[in-house]
């Protein structure tokens, strides 16, 4: 393989020169490719869609983790759905307040190959005594589990393939049952400009389940087409409006060093462009 072309869209797409191919094969669930690229370092793709790269993964993982955890302020129990590369687990484990984190990933091969070829993503987090990894279908886990969590993070692929069930009203309502009072659900929700339907569908489905839901955003270079949206849902309708002084205090006392996240960007990330607000019929 000399180059890798993402096949997310028919008439537009990104292409990478492949300096070295580490892995290319169909796992039990999806087609997994890991390769080296001069600009982005190690790149991982599933079913033709870029999932993460060494160079820009920090933006995604910090924002999908620290925004809900610092908003919550006292999260002890965290559930990660998906996240097979280990990046979310790494960021969650940086929070000393967290006592137990369960990661439910459907594809054992993704975890295995990412430990091997993307070791800086998990950075040893799989060995953290607070971490439990379950290889299972995330939607079945939230349906059947009796455990409860302060924050649930859905770090999934797009809703074609194994992750389809992670974008359903059923999944969201089971997540809600697993959340403690004041708990927060955040989910990867695609690039809004390119995948407008995902934003609209998720907004509708979450609205039917939670007292309050919205999106926040960050631009991740290899999720092409502009800002990536993260869906946010909670029965605490103020959880996303924590005053900056409190966020700064929490950030400082956590002692976590970040490259993208800071309290100001945390607050600003909930400010959405008008096209997105128009799509979801807000304001």
């Amino acid at each position: 393989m000399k180059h890798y072309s993402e096949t997310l869209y028919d008439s537009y797409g990104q292409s990478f020169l492949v300096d070295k191919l580490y892995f290319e094969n169909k796992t039990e669930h999806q087609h997994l490719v890991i390769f080296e690229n001069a600009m982005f370092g190690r790149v991982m793709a599933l079913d033709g869609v870029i999932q993460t790269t060494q160079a820009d993964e920090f933006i995604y993982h910090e924002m999908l983790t620290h925004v809900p955890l610092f908003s919550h302020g006292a999260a002890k129990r965290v559930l990660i759905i998906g996240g097979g590369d280990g990046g979310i687990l790494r960021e969650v484990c940086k929070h000393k307040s967290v006592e137990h984190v369960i990661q439910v990933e459907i594809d054992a091969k993704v975890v295995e190959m990412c430990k091997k070829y993307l070791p800086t993503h998990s950075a040893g987090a799989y060995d953290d005594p607070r971490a439990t990894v379950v290889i299972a279908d995330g939607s079945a886990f939230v349906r059947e589990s009796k455990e409860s969590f302060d924050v649930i993070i859905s770090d999934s692929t797009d809703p074609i393939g194994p992750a389809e069930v992670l974008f359903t009203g059923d999944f969201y309502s089971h997540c809600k049952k697993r959340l403690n009072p004041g708990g927060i659900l955040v989910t990867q929700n695609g690039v809004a400009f390119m995948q407008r339907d995902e934003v609209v569908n998720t907004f509708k489905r979450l609205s039917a389940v939670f007292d309050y839901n919205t999106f926040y955003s960050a631009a991740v270079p290899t999720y092409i087409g502009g800002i990536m949206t993260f869906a946010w849902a909670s029965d605490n309708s103020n959880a996303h409006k924590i005053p900056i002084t409190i966020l700064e205090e929490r950030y400082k006392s956590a002692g976590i060093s970040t490259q993208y996240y800071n309290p100001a960007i945390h607050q600003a990330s909930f400010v959405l462009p008008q096209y997105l607000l128009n799509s979801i019929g807000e304001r």
Partner: protein
Amino acid sequence: MERVTVKPYGEGKLYRELAATHGTPLLILDCEAVTCQYRLLSQSLPGVELCYAIKSQPHPVVINILYQLGAGFDIATSGEFELLRRQHIEPRSTIHTHPIKRDRDISEALRFGCTTFVIDNSLELEKFVNYRHRVGILVRVSFPNPNSPVDLSRKFGCLPGDVDHLIRKAVSLGIHVKGLSFHAGSQSPGPENHVYAITACREIIERHNREGGKLLSILDIGGGFPVSYADSTGDLVRDIDAFCAPIRDALGKFPGNFRIIAEPGRFLSAPTMTAVSKIMGKAYRGGESWYYLDDGLYGSYSGQLYDHATYPITIYSDHPERERATIAGPTCDSIDVIAENIELPPLSIGDLIIGEQMGAYTSASATDFNLFERAKIVPINQKKQ
């Protein structure tokens, strides 16, 4: 072309050696012929992207040679995608051409990386609403070809007059229609229907593009490029360049950056394989010799039934006499007769019967009936990688 050709015994040495080495029945795959066919068609259709219809002969060696030469692939099922995946084929070079699909057929194709799909009615169009940001659609138009032995416009394709309506519907659903496709009929005896369809599609496309909105930018002219079988259609066609000349002229009227795709299957695969079968029994009935081969209509010769093909047969014998004969396949079914009322030199048990032009729609549609083993495919003239 004659049904049976008798050649000097000495010239059949290669087949006798291959039969001795590999046993029979065999299908000998000549890798050089794959390259030759691809180059012939590329030269006859310059600027046309050739997407090999792998249903005609889904052998990995054929697929790999064509991929190395720059071919794309015309795919109809998830099974065919899995075959390409195992060969590490870049998915951008594939198009899904089955007009009728289940939801999972669409999602599996997308997960493989194919984003081009074909539809011919509004119910099929509606199936793409959930995938509308990811796909580009071709509308298949029907141009019936009464002269083709395999008319592919009966089962699929919309009427030319329905195209506008389908595109309007697609626009209202937010689905991108990027072009048109047609199939002028397999093993076409002449290029007239191709030319007619190209011209009709160009008129639809030009009219549409004048009206504004998203432009149609692709025409998929299907397949139908003929090869020589032992029947009248085969006799009509010897020169693919002459066959394609009027097609080239018709395509020349499109603007330079307009994409033209073709879906050749038979033309690329049929001449690449030769069947080598052995006479396993002989009888004298009804005043003629019956020869029972170890391959037949339920095996490599299945295309005689499904594909309406009559394969040229070659016998290597120096015997001067000719006698009336019938060649039959090995199964217990009386329909399993390959050729009757033919003139053959006297043959013996263990002699070889050679079937020519047997790469397309042969092993692809063979069955395991009676549990007779299928012909083994043996590649020859393979370039060392």
